């Protein structure tokens, strides 16, 4: 009987596959990395430069907002634009601020920053970068509708002092200023070309960075060529960078295994297990300050979560440790709104909601008349968000809250969550980059600063005052106290509930590539050191 033979064959194949499991996870830092604290792996500089580096990533973002760095508002776009644009300062290992286009800087007073520009820097069209480009870029950013404008803090003036010095004056001290300058929206743009309209930054990438765009096919691929004018003569190591967009995790894994990609970003927290035994493939996990958070829409008509007691009950019922252990396979950790892992961040175990029980959540729901609360949780389908959502569902079920999960692709999800004011969702799940200063991401809890969340979040004056106060404090014990007050207030407000840090997983072929990767990352940019990567063999 043919069908029976077929069934037996299928079952036999399944059993044979089942028995083919192998072992050998490879997440430990390389010997080089062990000698270089702050790194997961360090590129072998003895290898010759040149060659083609093939990368696979999950999404081609940026088309919605265009490619103007100042208007880019998601980490995946920052990652891409960082290949062609650079900032005055950058983030080094362990979240330290390092020089980039500014060779050095001084802070004569807490409100003054004097940047000494690097000499010999040119844009990829060959024109030398000037102080006017720096001043013009920052002024353009401050005058724009960029979401990043609020992160720069209370900038009073930006002026040049000679051809190679730029002075920024703040109206008040603002501790995260340098960390805010280190992100792509604060990149130095070719202002002369932008002003004379010979370049439109929304469509053309023209920066001082190591790579220049050669070709782009939306949702298919990007090809970058080495910037021949790049100021650091030994960089970038690879001549060509091919980035393939492969939304399916399985496709990226397959590309790694068959050599089609030398490096890939992965979403599944079990990637190292799934790739265990894969020949010449190494999987590493970066600890990040990025974190998942739950949005509760208080601005929708007839919002089910408008009552603070309901939101607090949800916050209490959420078990961040279980989310970290189960949904993220132990690779994330609970966090308050100051990202866990950053110096000065609050202890999530010390939050008021952490000390309360599910019974207290039920009591709050009863007091709010919401014993049979049910709502829809909108999520995007990129791993591990669906897993996080399902653990949230299980957590809230313990408090008698019914959650229906609505899963969609990232573009549809963004349209639903950010597309209208008031927004048309009950609850949604996303993640924030956590940056390099614990006060930065707290600014997104002020919708008047963030902008993107006015459709679902009501401003809280007391919280906003606390956030601003923490920003003004210099690093130290007093600032830590100020941040603790922000964390407690945001915990009680619970319109956006921080959950767990988001690990970033990268896999690469050891026979094809010797990359450099920081052990920590705060801006969602796993490609931060791609210019250092040495290609062993190109396919």
């Amino acid at each position, binding site marked *: 009987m043919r069908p029976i033979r077929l069934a037996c064959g299928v079952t036999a194949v*399944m059993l044979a596959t089942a028995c083919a499991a192998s072992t050998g996870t490879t997440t430990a830092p390389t010997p080089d990395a062990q000698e270089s604290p702050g790194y997961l792996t360090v590129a072998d500089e003895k290898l010759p430069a040149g060659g083609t580096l093939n990368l696979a990533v999950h999404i081609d973002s940026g088309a919605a907002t265009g490619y103007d760095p100042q208007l880019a508002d998601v980490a995946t776009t920052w990652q891409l634009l960082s290949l062609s644009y650079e900032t005055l300062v950058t983030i080094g290992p362990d979240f330290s601020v390092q020089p980039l286009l500014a060779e050095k800087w001084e802070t004569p007073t807490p409100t003054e920053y004097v940047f000494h520009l690097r000499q010999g820097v040119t844009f990829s069209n060959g024109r030398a970068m000037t102080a006017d480009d720096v001043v013009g870029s920052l002024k353009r950013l401050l005058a724009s509708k960029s979401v990043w404008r609020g992160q720069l803090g209370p900038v009073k003036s930006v002026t040049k002092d000679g051809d190679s010095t730029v002075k920024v004056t703040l109206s008040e001290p603002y501790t995260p200023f340098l960390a805010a300058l280190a992100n792509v929206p604060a990149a130095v743009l070719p202002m002369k070309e932008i002003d004379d309209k010979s370049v439109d930054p929304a469509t053309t990438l023209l920066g001082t960075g190591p790579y220049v765009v050669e070709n782009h096919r939306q949702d298919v691929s990007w090809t970058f060529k080495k910037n021949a004018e790049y100021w650091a003569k030994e960089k970038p190591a690879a001549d060509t960078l091919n980035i393939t967009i492969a939304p399916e995790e399985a496709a990226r894994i397959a590309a790694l295994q068959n050599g089609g990609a030398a490096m890939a970003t992965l979403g599944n927290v079990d990637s190292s297990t799934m790739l265990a035994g894969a020949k010449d493939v190494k999987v590493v996990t970066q600890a990040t300050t990025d974190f998942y958070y739950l949005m509760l829409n208080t601005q929708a008509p007839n919002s089910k979560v408008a009552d603070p007691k309901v939101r607090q009950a949800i916050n209490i019922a959420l078990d961040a440790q279980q989310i970290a252990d189960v949904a993220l396979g132990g690779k994330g950790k609970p966090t308050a709104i100051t990202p866990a892992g950053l110096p000065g961040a609050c202890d999530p175990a010390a939050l008021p909601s952490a000390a309360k029980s599910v019974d207290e959540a039920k009591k709050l729901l009863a007091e709010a008349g919401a014993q049979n609360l049910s709502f829809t949780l909108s999520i995007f389908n990129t791993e591990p968000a669906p897993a996080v959502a399902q653990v949230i569902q299980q957590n809230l079920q313990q408090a008698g809250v019914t959650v229906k999960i609505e899963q969609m692709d990232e573009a549809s999800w963004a349209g639903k969550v950010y597309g209208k004011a008031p927004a048309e969702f009950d609850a949604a799940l996303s993640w924030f980059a956590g940056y390099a200063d614990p006060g930065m991401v707290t600014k997104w809890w002020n919708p008047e600063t963030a902008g993107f969340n006015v459709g679902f979040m009501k401003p809280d004056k007391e919280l906003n005052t606390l956030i601003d106060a923490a920003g003004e404090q210099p690093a130290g014990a007093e600032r830590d106290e100020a941040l603790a007050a922000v964390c407690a207030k945001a915990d009680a407000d619970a319109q956006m509930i921080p959950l767990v840090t988001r690990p970033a997983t990268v896999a690469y072929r050891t026979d094809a590539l010797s990359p450099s990767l920081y052990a920590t990352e705060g801006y969602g940019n796993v490609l931060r050191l791609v210019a250092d990567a040495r290609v062993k063999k190109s396919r």
Partner: protein
Amino acid sequence: MKKLDRLTVGGLACLAVLVVFALGSLVGAGGDPDAIVGPRLQPPGPGWWLGTDNLGRSVLPRVMEGVGTTLLLSSVAVLVTAAVSATFGIVAGYRGGYLNELVMRLVEVLYSFPAIVLAILVAAVLGPGQTAALASIVLVTIPLMTRLVRAAAVAVSQRDYVTSAVISGARLPRVLGRHVLPNVAGTIAVQGTYALSVGIAVEGGLSFLGFGVQPPQASLGVLIQQGGTYMIAAPWLILGPGVVLVAAILAINVVGDGLRDRLEPRETRSLT
């Protein structure tokens, strides 16, 4: 009346077991399919007889729920398909003319799309979920069933008893409902079983692509998609749903074959 052969009886028994399996999920046998019961990715053992998945949920109740979801979805879809195809096929076959041409051309348009492409198109319009899966299965299975019902209706319409009914003044609904429909019912029943297996395959395909049922609800497609991701590290995740899916499709096809032999003994036709 010819007796059912042993293979058909075996197929029916297999389907019965699957239905009992699915009904067991409704009464909570096997446990809560969504509950986190143990460590992640544990191999089969006491407490989780088919192992645990990436969220520490027992695979057994999830497979039971998945069988129920997939069978229910496919069965409802096939009933809708049968109703639509019977209506249009009988009317087109009996009346002929422009109506027949119109129905057949529409059916050919639907038929020209590969099943999974049509299903993805529907899911893209309606959004992911059970509604999209249901509509997709209906649209995928309608063309073949309509053509076969129409062909049967054409043959039945030439029969003397139909002519007699018309001459004796029977109205159109009576002729179609009393004289044509009962005589094409065998074709509908046989084709229904094939449509059921196609439906299961389409649901599996859609859920595999993320357009089908939404988490945490399990369907065979969802479970196989997840199991495929962990095939090397946790093969028990794909083993259970994979075997059940193969068994369900085989059983339905075997039963369909048996019904065809019983109801249409003179026709010879390939399974595919």
